[in-house]
């Protein structure tokens, strides 16, 4: 078993090094896409706790991200609070949002909950759009001050490294949570509500916990976004973006961290790769998503896992025969 963990660590390290090398050799457009991928991964990992594991549709990801990004920008830039202190404040805000959104999830199920989260997302977007004095309104919030690191970031793109560190930390936490007692309890809520309750799982507590995790991940992604682009605009936090994050989750694989990363990567990178199909890209992509929702609802990662298991079985059988 130990050997397997080392192998996984080695593979991840190779991927990270390859990613950094790719970043260093790319032009600034590809660099910004690569950075976008980082905060998309964090968002999808957060969404995975609530929609993937617990099975409660959350369409407020973009709204929570907006709250994180704007409150970081306002505390840090408008009120000149220490950046790291503002980050802590934003994390605390994530806890509050998680509680506030988690509470309705105790009474509401399925689409009622998704309507609540859509409503929340829209209220956040409209509020940000209309509080022109504080947020800059539709013209946007300019010149967000960045988190300082061991060195100052002179160039826009070098901020990527700090975001990469954030992403790696978030991935590590997600792996630990998904494979822990918590992760299994979340899945039990999705798979069989009554049985979970009968085995003594405190559903109310766990649902709120899952929402809180999702909210914290989203606000961290918001801080990453604000720091990199240094410019915030309410149109980037519309409900349709929340749908995009759900698409990433569903395409990659519900419930598993590698699946989430795979989905975020595919949905973020494919539009850039398929420039040739430009006009028809989106319709093709959505059709694939719809077909996947019908035929492979657990996502690509579950297909991959099945394939790996199939090959392993074949190999084992061959060994036995030999």
């Amino acid at each position, binding site marked *: 078993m130990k050997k397997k963990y080392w192998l996984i660590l080695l593979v991840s390290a190779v991927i990270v090094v390859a990613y950094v090398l790719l970043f260093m050799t790319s032009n600034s457009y590809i660099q910004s896409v690569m950075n976008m991928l980082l905060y998309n991964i964090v968002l999808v990992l957060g969404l995975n706790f609530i929609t993937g594991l617990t099975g409660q549709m959350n369409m407020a990801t973009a709204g929570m991200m907006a709250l994180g990004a704007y409150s970081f920008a306002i505390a840090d830039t408008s009120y000149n609070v220490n950046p790291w202190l503002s980050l802590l404040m934003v994390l605390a805000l994530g806890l509050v949002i998680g509680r506030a959104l988690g509470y309705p999830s105790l009474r509401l199920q399925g*689409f*009622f909950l998704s309507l609540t989260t859509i409503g929340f997302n*829209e209220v956040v977007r409209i509020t940000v759009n209309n509080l022109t004095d504080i947020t800059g309104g539709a013209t946007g919030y300019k010149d967000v001050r960045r988190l300082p690191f061991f060195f100052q970031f002179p160039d826009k793109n070098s901020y990527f490294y700090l975001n990469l560190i954030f992403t790696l930390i978030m991935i590590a936490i997600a792996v630990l949570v998904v494979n822990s007692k918590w992760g299994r309890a979340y899945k039990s809520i999705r798979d069989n509500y009554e049985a979970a309750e009968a085995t003594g799982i405190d559903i109310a507590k766990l649902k709120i916990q899952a929402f809180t995790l999702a909210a914290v991940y989203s606000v961290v992604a918001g801080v990453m976004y604000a720091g990199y682009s240094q410019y915030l605009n309410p149109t980037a936090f519309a409900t349709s973006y929340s749908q995009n994050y759900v698409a990433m989750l569903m395409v990659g694989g519900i419930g598993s961290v590698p699946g989430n990363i795979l989905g975020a990567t595919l949905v973020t990178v494919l539009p850039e790769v398929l420039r040739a199909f430009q006009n028809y890209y989106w319709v093709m992509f959505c059709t694939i*998503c*719809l077909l996947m929702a*019908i035929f492979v609802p657990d996502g690509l990662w579950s297909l991959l896992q099945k394939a790996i298991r199939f090959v392993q079985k074949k190999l084992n059988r061959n060994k036995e025969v030999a």
Partner: protein
Amino acid sequence: MSIFEGVNWLQLLVTAIAMGCIYSLIATEYTLIYNATGLVNFAHESFIVLGAYIFAGTFERALQFPHWLAIALTLVSMAAFGVLVASTILNPLRNLQFVTYAMFGTMMLSRIIIEICRLSWGSLPFTVKGFLRESINIGSTVLSESYIYIIVISIIVISLLQAFFKLTKAGKAMICVSQNKDAAALMGINVSASINLTVAISSIICGIIGILCAPLYNVSSNMVTSAATKGFCAGVIGGFGSYPGAIIGGILIGLIEQFGIIFIPSVWKDALSFGLMIIFLLIRPGGIIKRKKA
């Protein structure tokens, strides 16, 4: 009392009721699908947009048919489209393991339809010339012709729907299917045919909404985004799954958002209805008219 000065009550009332009727129709249209299949059709916005595009883009602009023929042909094509969607997409989605998968499926369906509209009719918004663009003067009040039509047609549509449920066999069968699919099948009702018919009716109503909205907004892919979401608010506030609830919720939202702008700046009126919906979901999730459990 300065805020009430210069408020034209009649105009405000007619606008409020007309918008309320639109929301009621939207709520009715997805309540039909919800009752028949148990799915919330997140693609309903795109059905409405498709209806508007078929009417305005194809029959009015490209083929230049007279209005009545264009309307009739739009409704026929929407019905065919409804049957197609019901049998190919909604049926498999209905049988999925988790409701989240089905919701995701309808969201993707919505994007596909919107994209197809954009690809086939172009991304530039356009208007229908000479269709419900007149206005009527009553004293100092100027009323848009389209608002009057919206109110009248909504009343006709909703009464026809009720009559259909009460008087025809197919309508009664639909109510049976929405109450208990197994029992309905045992009584000799063809459940999937009944679902197809329901979705077809829902699509026709979407087509009517699309045609009615064409003079209000320009025909574009996001013409009814906020109205479609407010239709959800209307359903929740009135009582999810109940037809009277859909109507009451719709009219209520219309009144609140139109009269609300007397007291608060009009940019906040969208937030008002969403806030109201969230409050209702938390305090009284069943809505004003609680639907009796079958």
